[in-house]
């Protein structure tokens, strides 16, 4: 790309970079496509492809209308950022929800989460996550019960087995009739409400190599885009190679989820399951594709590590003690709000600047 690095005869900055908003955004779209393929494989066209397409269409349309109303250039509606928001929002809803839910979420994400704050670059929090928070507050039943089991679209009798895994994939449990959760995290959370013996049996069943394999390949209940871990990682690798993704936030986030999941996530101190914590819920999707949003995450290197660790800690706290089984989206939203503060405290010293004594 040497020829793309041009010198400009103009005001600074003088070094041009081939990286433009459009290129970055379309790279992210490309990186999210493998997970879409995985979602279609798991949840079918009606369960995965349709919500994503509707959500993207709604996001772009909302962006266009907003820009038009504000008298700005409407070409920005196609810079890819609205498409990314639309895809991420749809990835964050359960596959069994009615078609209008992702549409409504996308419109809210764009209108309130992004354009009301001044458009791309001015939004305080990740618009897609704000859209999800809006849906969670407005339609708690649909957002926490609208699950459909993997492969249910091809085999309607598949249904859920125990612990949020497809029925055929799970080895039978003793006293299994007590354990029905639509997602593994729900099963994990519910296990704390059972008596010690039963709960321990549920958690033990969730901490097996078989479960890890199911989680890795997406054979479990979950939101549209969060379950295909391998394909998400493939997309993240592409972004990394294209230098769009910076490694600090995802690594700090997933590391913190694993660490605190082990320390705090279980029934007692140091009794959690690190691998399970990372592989369930939306940790991988959130860590690579939502926490890393360039607008709403810190710019400094130290800040990014603090951001990732903070989000990881909050995720585990919500999972263990919060009202919802999964805390990934709220943890990132909270850290988004803390981002200006983190940037301020981690501002690098200027060359020659002397540390002030307090």
């Amino acid at each position, binding site marked *: 790309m040497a020829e793309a690095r041009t010198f400009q005869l103009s005001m600074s900055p003088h070094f041009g970079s081939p990286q433009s908003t459009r290129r970055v955004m379309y790279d992210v779209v490309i990186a999210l496509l493998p997970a879409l393929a995985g979602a279609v494989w798991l949840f079918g066209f009606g369960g995965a492809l349709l919500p994503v397409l509707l959500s993207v269409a709604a996001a772009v349309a909302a962006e266009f209308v907003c820009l038009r109303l504000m008298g700005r250039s409407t070409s920005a509606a196609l810079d890819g950022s609205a498409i990314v928001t639309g895809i991420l929002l749809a990835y964050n809803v359960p596959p069994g929800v009615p078609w209008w839910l992702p549409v*409504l979420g996308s419109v809210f994400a764009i209108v*309130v989460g992004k354009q*009301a704050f001044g458009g791309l670059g001015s939004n305080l929090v990740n618009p897609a996550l704000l859209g999800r928070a*809006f849906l969670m*507050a*407005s*339609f*708690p*039943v*649909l957002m926490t019960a609208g699950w459909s089991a993997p492969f249910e679209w091809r085999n309607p009798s598949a249904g859920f087995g125990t612990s949020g895994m497809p029925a055929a994939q799970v080895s039978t449990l003793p006293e299994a009739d007590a354990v029905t959760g639509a997602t593994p995290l729900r099963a994990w959370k519910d296990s704390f409400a059972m008596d010690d013996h039963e709960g321990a049996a549920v958690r033990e069943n969730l901490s097996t190599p078989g479960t890890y394999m199911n989680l890795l390949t997406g054979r479990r209940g979950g939101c549209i885009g969060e379950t295909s871990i391998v394909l998400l990682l493939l997309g993240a690798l592409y972004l990394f190679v294209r230098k769009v993704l910076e490694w600090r936030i995802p690594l700090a986030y997933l590391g913190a989820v694993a660490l605190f999941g082990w320390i705090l996530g279980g029934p007692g101190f140091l009794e959690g399951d690190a691998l399970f914590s990372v592989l369930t819920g939306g940790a991988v999707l959130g860590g690579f594709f939502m926490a890393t949003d360039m607008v709403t995450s810190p710019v400094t290197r130290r800040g990014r590590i603090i951001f990732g660790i903070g989000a990881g800690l909050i995720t585990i706290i919500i999972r263990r003690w919060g009202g919802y089984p999964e805390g990934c989206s709220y943890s990132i939203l909270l850290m988004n709000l803390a981002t200006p503060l983190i940037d301020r405290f981690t501002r690098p010293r200027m060359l020659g600047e002397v540390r002030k004594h307090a």
Partner: protein
Amino acid sequence: MSLWKDFSNGFYTENPIFRITLGMCPFLALSTSMENAVGMGAAATFVLIWSNVAISALRNVIPDKIRIPCYIVFIATFVSLVDMVMAAYAPALHKSLGIYIPLIVVNCIILGRAEAFANKNTVLSSLLDGIGMGIGFTLAMALMATIREILGSGSWYGFNILGQAYANQPILIAILPPGAFVLMGFVLAAFAVIDRRKERAA
């Protein structure tokens, strides 16, 4: 004409909610349904009118240095009246307004009008100002409650208007606190747009 101005000021040009943005706490908390909004509007209007009248009647007697405590005494008296009357005759409404009835004592609109208006004007002007501001506050409450109740419960004044299918799955956030802030932002933005149109036309 000046008396008419005193009266109508609170409707739009100096609407306590949308213009002076006072009294946000009861406004955001109780605009969840028309019933709450009208109940709160009526209670606040009553207190506003009589505290305005009492304070302006005694404006030359109240020592300047301790005027705020004096206002509070008047306001608290009328609030106690409202509280007891409502508890006796409208216990259901009293229960649903809850803590916000006693909190009228520290309502910024009432204290604000006492300090900014009743303290300096005649009893008649203050009476009209109190009525006008009370109506303005109630109208603002009703506007917000209309938006929030229809979106958040699919009903208006308790009557289902958007159908049962909607009422089973409304946009619940509209009657939750975050929805109040978001919708307030949109309403204020709408007022700003109207104003700008007016300015351009003028």
